[in-house]
């Protein structure tokens, strides 16, 4: 019973806030940032670069996978992921996409350091890591794509609360 009362109170609270907003000239709630086409393209581009990195690595004979042969690609891709993260951090109402980019960067750096310390990268781990990155970038793209609102929804959310 107290729970039902609490929910009712919350709904009434929302109702009065909405009425107050209307009195001030109309408003709509906005809890997630709007779709960013540049961010979406960046996810696809960096994801493709990571997949190509693993493709090249797996095509390289295991005894030729010394870290120094891959260091340039590691640095380029790390800075690309960092750019993705910075873009996401700069956007308001974008907590989840920022966390996704942080996770991608964390794992990229982890695998780079492991490659550096072992000075090789075995097929077994590389295949699993490649597949994981594909899923991570797919999740990042899916999160961004979800923010693409229909035209009528876009109008309704042009004002932030």
């Amino acid at each position, binding site marked *: 019973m107290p729970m039902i009362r609490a929910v009712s109170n919350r709904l009434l609270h929302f109702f009065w806030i909405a009425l107050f907003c209307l009195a001030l000239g109309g408003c709509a709630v906005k809890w997630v940032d709007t779709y960013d086409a540049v961010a979406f393209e960046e996810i696809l581009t960096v994801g493709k670069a990571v997949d190509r990195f693993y493709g090249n690595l797996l095509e390289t004979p295991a005894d030729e996978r010394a870290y120094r042969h891959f260091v340039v690609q590691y640095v380029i891709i790390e800075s690309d992921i960092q750019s993705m993260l910075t873009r996401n951090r700069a956007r308001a109402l974008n907590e989840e996409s920022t966390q996704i980019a942080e996770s991608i960067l964390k794992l990229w750096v982890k695998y780079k350091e492991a490659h550096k310390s072992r000075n090789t990268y075995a097929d077994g781990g590389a295949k699993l890591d490649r597949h994981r990155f594909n*899923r991570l970038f797919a999740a990042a793209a899916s999160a961004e794509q979800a923010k693409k609102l229909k035209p009528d929804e876009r109008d309704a959310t042009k004002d932030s609360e």
Partner: protein
Amino acid sequence: MSFDIGKVFEGMLAASGDVLSAEWPGVQACVKAAYRDELAALEAIATARLDGEIDDAEMQSQLADEKEALKVALLACKVKGKLAAQKAANAAIEVLADAVGAALKLV
């Protein structure tokens, strides 16, 4: 001025409910897909270990990374859930706006 708060409130709840009913299956499907993909990834790790492609230390590291991967997949679903809630709230506000607008025209 004709403005029945109770009736408007019911309309707002109905509008929110309709939107959530339409949006929620998409969020549920996202969560189900996240767990289905996670299961496939865990199977791939187990297979790699059984086939001798990775050792115990690598398997432990892979399992730890899968926690991160599942978190990321669920974060994408969280975005969809928040958007569903946002659409529901805005549908309710639209009902209220229409009711206020109609009442003002009658004044």
